[in-house]
């Protein structure tokens, strides 16, 4: 502090008196500012919400890359063009960290009116009543689902409530490196091969090319799920697991056999490929000839490799697969502009121009009429491939399973842990399976 402001003398002369006065004023001024600042902030915040000019601002939040952001922004601009009173506050980011942020926004009482969500979290949000039940809008016709495949629509229903509207459809896809196979004169795998045949084929690929034939999907819940359905089981049944420790043991044994035969990469490479990041999938990093992905990821995978890629269904009976909502649009239950928000997601699903803009970035369009238009019009080869495979599979799709229950994210993490334990030889398949089932039970009970 400056010495001049420090009255060290007991008999103040005029100068010190003046500084004291001055300081007192300064203090009051500062105090006033400190007190007033939050008020100003609050007033400004109020100003945001007040729709005094009849305009509505809808906040919308999604994850994805830049391409998706561009397409979505165009579609939303189109909506504003048709409804000049509605504008958007758009936020998007990469997949990693998206759900942390969404949860934090919700906790802060400031969730977006519309948000993108997937089946890993839909039940978590729906069970806690964070999502608006869209049933009444569907009944009143404000949300048109008449052109949706019934099973796809059903896959957005949690506890009898329509918690999310499918923003696109996809299904499991086994992507393989065509170039590598052709170069070595090897046959391409086909849909309908049994799991045994797939592993035998992969073993042959490993021997001939030196590149492991297939990624080991034992840590991958979506592969495990298809396999379970083919055994007449399921991932979940009501609020319980749809499988037993014996099922898991058989699944882990199957892949232990494949590893022992050299059909898969070593465990550390399998671990690398277990990352959900598209750029780390082994088929594009060249560390295996096949990867277990979703069909709509084909175009994105294609961008990360110079090789030709092919895509088929997972091994076994293709009816184990189903029309999965690749992601949903959900509306926040507390949204002040819920009606407008529902109209926006209706627009994104059913407006011909909007659907054409969005293309197949979020999966095949949910509206079957418009899906046909898009499929016929596309020129992107990777996209054509994924549409073709999915259209073919649509004939054999099985019934949709129930949406994964609360605790699903933990179940996924536990499956990865158990499978890697077995892969690194730290546990036998039976031990790993027992640990997994026990951990799952704890996860879905809490």
């Amino acid at each position: 502090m400056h010495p001049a402001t420090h009255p060290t003398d007991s008999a103040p002369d005029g100068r010190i008196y003046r500084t004291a006065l001055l300081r007192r004023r300064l203090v009051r001024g500062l105090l006033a500012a400190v007190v007033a600042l939050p008020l100003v902030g609050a007033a400004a915040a109020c100003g945001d919400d007040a729709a005094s000019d009849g305009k509505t601002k809808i906040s919308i939040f999604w994850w994805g890359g830049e391409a998706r952001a561009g397409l979505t922004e165009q579609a939303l601009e189109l909506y504003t063009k048709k409804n000049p009173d509605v504008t958007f506050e758009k936020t998007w980011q990469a997949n990693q960290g998206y759900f942390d942020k969404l949860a934090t926004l919700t906790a802060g009482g400031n969730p977006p009116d519309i948000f993108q969500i997937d089946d890993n979290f839909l039940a978590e949000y729906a069970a806690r009543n964070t999502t608006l039940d869209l049933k009444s809008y569907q009944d009143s016709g404000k949300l048109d689902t008449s052109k949706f495949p019934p099973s796809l629509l059903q896959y957005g229903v949690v506890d009898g409530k329509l918690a999310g509207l499918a923003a696109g459809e996809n299904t499991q896809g086994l992507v393989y490196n065509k170039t590598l196979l052709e170069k070595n004169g090897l046959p391409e795998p086909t849909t309908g091969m049994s799991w045994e045949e797939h592993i035998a084929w992969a073993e042959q690929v490993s021997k001939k090319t030196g590149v492991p034939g297939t990624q080991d999907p034992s840590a991958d819940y979506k592969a495990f799920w298809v396999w379970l359905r083919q055994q007449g089981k399921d991932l979940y049944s009501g609020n319980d697991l749809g499988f037993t420790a014996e099922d898991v043991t058989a699944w882990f044994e199957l892949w232990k056999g494949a590893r022992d035969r050299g059909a898969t990469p070593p465990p550390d490479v399998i671990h690398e490929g277990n990352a959900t990041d598209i750029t780390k999938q082994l088929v594009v990093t060249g560390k295996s000839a096949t990867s277990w992905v979703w069909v709509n990821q084909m175009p994105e995978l294609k961008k990360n490799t110079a090789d030709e890629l092919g895509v088929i269904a997972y091994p076994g009976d293709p009816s184990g697969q189903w029309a999965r909502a690749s992601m949903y649009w959900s509306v926040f239950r507390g949204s002040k502009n819920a009606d407008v928000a529902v109209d926006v997601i209706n627009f994104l699903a059913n407006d011909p121009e909007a659907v054409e803009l969005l293309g197949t970035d979020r999966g095949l369009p949910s509206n079957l009429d418009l899906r046909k238009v898009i499929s016929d019009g596309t020129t992107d080869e990777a996209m054509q491939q994924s549409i073709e495979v999915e259209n073919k599979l649509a004939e054999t799709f099985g019934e949709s399973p129930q949406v994964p229950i609360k605790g699903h994210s933990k179940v996924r993490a536990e499956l990865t842990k158990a499978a890697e334990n077995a892969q690194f030889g730290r546990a036998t398949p039976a031990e790993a399976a027992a640990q997994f089932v026990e951990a799952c039970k704890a996860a879905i009970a809490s």
Partner: protein
Amino acid sequence: MALTTAPDPTRRGTGSVRPDATRRGTGRIRHGEGLAGYVFLSPWLIGLMGITAIPMLLSLYLSFTNYDILTPWSEVEWVGLANYERMFTNDPSWWHSVGVTLRFALIAVPLKLAAALGVALLLNRAWRGVGLFRGLFYLPSLLGGSVALAIVWVNMFNREGAFNSFLSLVGIQGKPWVNDPDWALETLMVLAIWQFGAPMVIFLAGLKQVPTELYEAAAVDGAGRFRQFVNVTLPMLSPVIFFNLVLETINGFQGFTAAFVLSNGTGGPVDSTLMYTLNLYITGFTDLEMGYASAMAWVFLIAIALITVVFFSTGRFWVHYSDGEEH
């Protein structure tokens, strides 16, 4: 202002009181001055309350509830000690993360301090260009807990990484270090040890404080280099060692960024890098069990406080303060 009013410990008991201090507090402006103090403190005070104190108290409350982020506050249920009970009796992954964190801290912290002291001894000489080396050795710790550094580390220590290329030059078959559950944590330890710059600089400053007469006297008494180090350097340096030990231990327990990046936020492979803070983060933000995560945070806080208390209470047996006062 804080400097002039803080009690000066070195003057304790000497009876010397600052002359101006007696006059203060008697004037009429005392009230206004206190107010002014608070006004000037207010940015910090508001920050402390808003960002630290109030959230901490809230998390203490939440640790006794089943709060899950998405549920509105009004519907949060009080569950008593259930979260704490679950942690100690019914959560193997919590115990696992405690083990991982202890292993990390017990190995990485002593080695880091040893490296810092060793290099500080080497650099505490009047060589030409020694300043450059001090700068170079300090550089890694400037990068701190950065994400970029962790990404570099992953790429250096994976199967095709630079480290294995180097090993193969000398005919050693490397391992997929970061992707091997037996080695992933050790790779993180190496990263932590490599960033020894901050304690090193503090050691250097400490070494400069040791009076050269002591070494001369020891040399006259016939003490060799090693004896000088053990009987002069270490005791004289003990307050600095103590300071670094406390600080680095706390830092070591809180390691997060590198483990998060290396494992894509999962703590893998096979939970080998599931540090306490990472486990806490996953519990709170992925599994959405924020009440339970709050309880974990409080146990963590208390554990670190206890460890620090243990350090301070053992300190008087081996830490020597050269100012002649007993502390």
